[in-house]
């Protein structure tokens, strides 16, 4: 096991505490850079979605994971970013300008949502953000002069510095990857600055933070604004990737999906946003794969256990019928969420940390290391 001796505060806040970080993240980056030349175009497209979802996840983590303010309205911020891009594009605004404008506008609206949210906690905040998202959805459908209503808007191909970047080109993937990496690095820097420390203090105890001199209202609004702005940036990329946007893409369902990203990934670290995004985006092709191949596999297993060809064929068609049932995907979704909440509340990244610690401490690992405290008294709950 490696012991890091920290002799100063600078040691404590290093982004790369030791050489291993350079090696592992270097390898990861190299793999991501050669990915477009190795993977199939379908997987590349999914990878772009992973980047976009992970960017939103990072934005949501700042608000939900680090400031402790739940939000079920992030689809609205994504929509505002996407529509800003599509609208400004009509007036031939160059990409960098509308990219920044989308982030700025979404950030501003995020701050405006943050103000009323200051006094709300827990369930009241959740319902307020849901209300906000529903109102935005309705505005998008009704404000036809700008958003083209329910007919949706076509988003032109991205052109960057005079070069057109089609949505399925490697360049577009690199752009999304760059936005994600910059967002992550920026957020890491934010979190080790006084602002980030104030966010975490507010999450852990608002009263304690206030008594330490943290301006709770200011930092909550800041957190909302930053989180919304990042989501707005992701929204621009989302619009370009889909090349067509309409209000029914940005429903409550999408907000829930974003929350699932951070929940499944793990809400206490930025790794969680990326892992969760991979999970959410890849579950679709995985389920399709299962649906196509599972009946054959199960029939094969039955055959090896001595089932005749007729029985095996019967089993295969039964499984196939079950797999193509309408709504099976929703049920699996639901089960996954419940299982994660019940058995892996720290998410995928938490599981990775547990495995790592298990091998580091090999015979001495204690399960209780990661046990969370239960609070049974209403007045002691901090939210």
């Amino acid at each position, binding site marked *: 096991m490696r012991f890091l001796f920290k002799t100063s505060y600078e040691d404590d806040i290093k982004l790369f505490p030791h050489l291993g970080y350079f090696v592992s993240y270097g390898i990861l980056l190299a793999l991501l850079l050669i990915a477009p030349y190795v993977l199939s175009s379908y997987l590349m497209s999914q990878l772009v979605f992973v980047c976009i979802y992970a960017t939103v996840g990072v934005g949501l983590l700042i608000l*939900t994971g680090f400031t402790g303010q739940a939000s079920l309205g992030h689809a609205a911020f994504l929509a505002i970013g996407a529509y800003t891009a599509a609208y400004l594009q009509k007036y031939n605004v160059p990409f960098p300008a509308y990219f920044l404008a989308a982030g700025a506008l979404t950030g501003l609206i995020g701050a405006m949502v943050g103000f*009323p949210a200051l006094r709300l906690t827990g369930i009241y905040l959740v*319902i307020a953000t849901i209300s906000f998202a529903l109102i935005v959805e309705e505005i998008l459908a009704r404000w036809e002069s700008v958003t083209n209503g329910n007919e949706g808007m076509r988003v032109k191909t991205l052109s960057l510095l005079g070069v057109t970047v089609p949505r399925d080109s490697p360049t577009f993937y690199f752009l999304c990857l760059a936005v994600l990496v910059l967002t992550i690095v920026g957020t890491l820097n934010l979190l080790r600055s006084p602002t980030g420390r104030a966010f975490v203090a507010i999450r852990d105890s608002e009263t304690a933070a206030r008594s330490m001199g943290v301006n709770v209202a200011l930092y909550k609004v800041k957190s909302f604004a930053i989180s919304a702005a990042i989501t707005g940036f992701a929204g621009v990329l989302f619009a370009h990737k889909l090349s067509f946007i309409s209000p029914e893409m940005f429903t409550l369902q999408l907000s829930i999906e974003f929350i699932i990203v951070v929940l499944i990934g793990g809400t206490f670290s930025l790794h969680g946003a990326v892992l969760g995004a991979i999970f959410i985006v890849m579950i679709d092709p995985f389920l399709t794969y299962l649906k196509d191949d599972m009946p054959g596999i199960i029939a094969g297993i039955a055959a090896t256990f001595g089932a005749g060809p007729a029985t095996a064929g019967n089993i295969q068609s039964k499984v196939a019928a079950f797999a193509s049932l309408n*709504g099976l995907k929703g*049920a699996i979704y*639901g089960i996954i969420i419940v299982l994660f909440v019940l058995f892996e509340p720290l998410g995928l990244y938490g599981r990775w940390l547990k495995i790592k610690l298990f091998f580091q401490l090999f015979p001495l690992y204690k399960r209780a290391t990661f046990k969370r405290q239960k609070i049974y008294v*209403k007045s002691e709950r901090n*939210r």
Partner: protein
Amino acid sequence: MLDFVQQLVSGVALGCVYGLIALGFVLVYKATEVVNFAQGDLMMLGGFFAFTFIGMMGLNYWIGFAGAVAAMALFGMLAERVVVRPILGYPQFSIIMATIGLGYFLRSVAGMIWGTDDLKIETPFSQGVLRVGSLVLAYDKLSVIAATVILCTLLWLFFNKTTLGTAMRASSENMLAAYYMGIPVKRVVSVVWAISAAVATCAGVLLAPITFIHSNVGLVLGLKAFPAAVLGGFGSIPGAVVGGVLIGVIESMAGFYLAEGWKDVAPYIVLLAVLLLKPEGLFGLHVRKKV
């Protein structure tokens, strides 16, 4: 003027629907400080159970109704045992996510079992209208209003006058202390979920002639009932009904007097405005935190 009164009355009827669903939210919240996002889906499932008993097995309406309520009460206990009990005491947000997951699951499974068509139950209230002067009120809406008033009164009495109700309030305040005082907290929570599932079933069955039963009805109505519960202040039984009626009246007024599109948004705008002024809703209690 007549238009106004007619809109008011139909708004109240609609609001009682929301109030009836909101009652279920409030019950669970009052006893366990858990917000059950799957409440609307429990209502949907209750409607499907009733459809199975009445429409498919051909039982008498009232027997089928009672059967559905009993079955759903058991189902509520099961859901509590499997999904909620292991995470009681964890931050509220985990439980919200767990119940959202439960809702997803129930919606999909109901869609798989009963299909995606709109189903209808023949009820004694399906036909006929009540005329007061030139006001018109359908019996099915009237039945919802009556049920809301009755259930609200019964539940209020239950929570404030009976021993079990007092035990529920105690365990909501401090589960540990309640446990030390000899209150069987686990069983209390279980009973609360049974009651709330039963209330949801009542809503589902009474709504069947109005909204029909399909697998998304819970989501749609739940999203309206939820603001109702918040508007009234989570944790207040009369508040839920008042909130529901307010939301219903606002919705029907906005639908009649304002341009198209306001109808769906107006309740949420009012909700946000109320939360700005009173963050704990209209009848909610302000809870001071211990540091």
